[in-house]
């Protein structure tokens, strides 16, 4: 189904999560003729993350809190086919760390006569719902996360076979991360595995990391913590997944340990900050590679996983590539977890001195460390990472990853604080500002977009952006790389050279990622607008203190001069060709015009 250009059925387009389309109707030669074909407002503000799905001529749209879902018929997108507007406890808003975002929907195609096709949606208040894809009616609804203990949901659900995987959020409130698989037909819990704690709860068996025992094996979910700190240890996974059906392994990253004050949690804090490969049926870990936090507490996160098959050093390898918050892009053998490459996302990374490839570890730079009773300065990357929730892309013909990168550094000072369930548990004060290649006097130059080869470890091209490239990219066979920017542009660059070929000014900044589909022979490209997320918290919640919003307010103080809030979808095609340009009378209430004879 994912191979059919008429569909866009899951986050990242297909199980490789490479967000690469084989369509070339829109290409480097004609992209200058790309125009809006139609648009849709969700009726909500706040950050609009993720991207819509298209299945069998119907588009499914997710929104920010309260996580409305809309279905539009592509033959006449002006008429809303159905809408689902959940009633959620408004208290959920108060425990969301980083705006009221949601990263998208999932789709399950029915394989029996009993269960309808389903659209799966996660809600900020912790519910997971399955909706009848035809009617929008609730088919089932379970409780996955409890806002009373600070646990929310922003991650998109992910369908593998007859299960839906659901992640977790709330590490900023000390939530111990877990991932759950539900049977889509019955809503029964199939498995639930944690990021910290006893081996059986983490999903560690006898063959875990057998190819790389130096990564650690049994008992470390407890042994790398002091006392019971693992119970509030973080490791939530709110990012993206990928899946290899031939290995039956699901790939994702567990998030940060908590609190941010690292003096309060001695130890390696396993298995947070880990690239995980779990068996889809049992949830057990085949392998896990902890990415290592820096001495400054910059912590790896649940960022995108992209699968590729490439030849490196003469060997044909099945790979997973992962651009992390900590400034390193990792490439591992996805069969057994061997570390194949680890490169800096930018040469201004200073929290590591270098990557020692022989044992496979990045070496920490103590000079840029953080600790109690000390203010660390000029630390790169910042806590927002050199890469965050952006869903990037990979072009298998060019062998290039197109990365949406942040260029933000910081000062960081931790403080002691107690843990109270349901309250924020951060324990650090941050100031963030542009990295060395940006304009620190004017707080601009906070982002980059780059084309990276995991074979050479080199960047074929790089370009600075005014603000962090927060949403992600899409690559196409037309030789184009598309991405939205926080200052409200939707851009297309030449995939080979990085040359800017086209852009469009959207109503608001973009923090989702682009998608494409074909309908009635025409290629369309869709993108959400609606600024927000962590970089938008100052603008969204009208904050002034530069250290507010976990330090993001100061870094993005100038964002308001380029954009305001919004919320909706733009759909582009060549010359703006679409249902209404083809037939202006489509969806008219009446075509009969009466006159009074004058």
């Amino acid at each position: 189904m994912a191979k059919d250009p008429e569909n866009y059925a899951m986050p990242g387009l297909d199980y490789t999560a490479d967000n690469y389309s084989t369509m070339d109707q829109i290409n480097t030669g004609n992209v200058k003729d790309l125009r809006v074909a139609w648009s849709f407002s969700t009726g909500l503000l706040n950050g609009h993350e993720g991207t819509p799905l298209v299945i069998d001529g119907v588009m499914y749209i997710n929104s920010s809190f309260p996580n409305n879902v809309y279905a539009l018929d592509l033959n006449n997108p002006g008429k809303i086919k159905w809408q689902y507007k959940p009633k959620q406890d408004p208290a959920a808003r108060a425990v969301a760390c980083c705006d009221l975002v949601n990263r998208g929907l999932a789709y399950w195609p029915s394989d029996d006569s009993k269960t309808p096709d389903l659209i799966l949606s996660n809600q900020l208040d912790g519910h997971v719902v399955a909706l009848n894809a035809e009617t929008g009616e609730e088919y089932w609804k379970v409780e996955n996360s409890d806002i009373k203990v600070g646990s929310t949901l922003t991650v998109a659900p992910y369908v593998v076979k007859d299960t839906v995987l659901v992640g977790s959020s709330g590490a900023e409130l000390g939530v111990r991360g877990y991932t759950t698989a539900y049977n889509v037909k019955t809503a029964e819990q199939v498995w639930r595995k944690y990021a910290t704690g006893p081996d059986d709860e983490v999903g560690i068996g006898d063959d875990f990391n057998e190819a790389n025992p130096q990564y650690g094996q049994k008992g470390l979910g407890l042994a790398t913590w002091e006392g019971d700190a693992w119970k509030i240890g973080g490791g939530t996974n709110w990012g993206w997944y990928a899946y290899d059906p031939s290995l039956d392994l699901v790939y994702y990253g567990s998030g940060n340990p908590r609190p941010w004050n690292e003096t309060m949690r001695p130890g390696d804090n396993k298995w947070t900050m880990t690239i995980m490969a779990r068996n889809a049926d049992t949830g057990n870990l085949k392998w896990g590679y902890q990415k290592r936090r820096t001495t400054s507490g910059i912590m790896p996160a649940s960022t995108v996983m992209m699968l590729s098959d490439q030849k490196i050093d003469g060997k044909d390898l099945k790979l997973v590539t992962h651009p992390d918050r900590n400034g390193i892009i990792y490439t591992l053998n996805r069969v057994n977890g061997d570390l194949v490459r680890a490169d800096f996302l930018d040469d201004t990374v200073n929290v590591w001195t270098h990557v020692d490839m022989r044992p496979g570890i990045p070496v920490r730079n103590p000079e840029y460390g953080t600790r109690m009773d000390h203010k660390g300065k000029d630390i790169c990357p910042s806590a927002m990472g050199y890469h965050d929730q952006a869903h990037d892309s990979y072009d298998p013909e060019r062998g290039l990853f197109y990365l949406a990168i942040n260029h933000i550094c910081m000062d960081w000072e931790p403080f002691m604080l107690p843990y109270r369930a349901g309250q924020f548990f951060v324990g650090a004060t941050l100031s963030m500002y542009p990295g060395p290649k940006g304009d620190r006097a004017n707080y601009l130059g906070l982002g980059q977009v780059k084309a990276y080869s995991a074979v050479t470890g080199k960047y074929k091209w790089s370009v600075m952006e005014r603000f962090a490239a927060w949403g992600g990219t899409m690559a196409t066979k037309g030789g184009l790389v598309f991405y939205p920017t926080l200052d409200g542009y939707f851009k297309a660059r030449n995939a080979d050279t990085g040359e800017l070929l086209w852009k469009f000014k959207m109503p608001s900044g973009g923090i989702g990622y682009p998608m494409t589909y074909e309908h009635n022979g025409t290629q369309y490209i869709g993108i959400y607008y609606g600024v927000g997320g962590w970089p938008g918290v100052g603008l969204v919640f009208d904050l002034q203190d530069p250290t507010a919003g976990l330090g993001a307010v100061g870094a993005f103080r100038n964002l308001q001069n380029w954009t305001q809030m919004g919320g909706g979808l733009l759909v582009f095609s060549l010359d703006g060709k679409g249902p209404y340009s083809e037939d202006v009378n489509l969806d008219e209430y009446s075509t009969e015009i009466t006159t009074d004879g004058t």
Partner: protein
Amino acid sequence: MALAFAAGGALAYDGTKCKAPGNCWEPKPGYPEKVKGSKYDPKHDPKELAKQGNSIKEMEARNAKRSANFKKTGKWVYDVSKI
């Protein structure tokens, strides 16, 4: 294990000196090996630490009732008091 003894000479915690495979943490100079009893003791309240685990157990029990009822009746009822 090559990993355990990879880098020599670094005086401060750089992540390369491992007690065991996968366990390479060291205190930074002047900071304690254990925070319990030190001035950085988080003094966690065990009752607070137990809240997440209890909440998940209760949600799992309610969900199990809902899906069992769904399998039996073919209708989803969210409110467990009505099952």
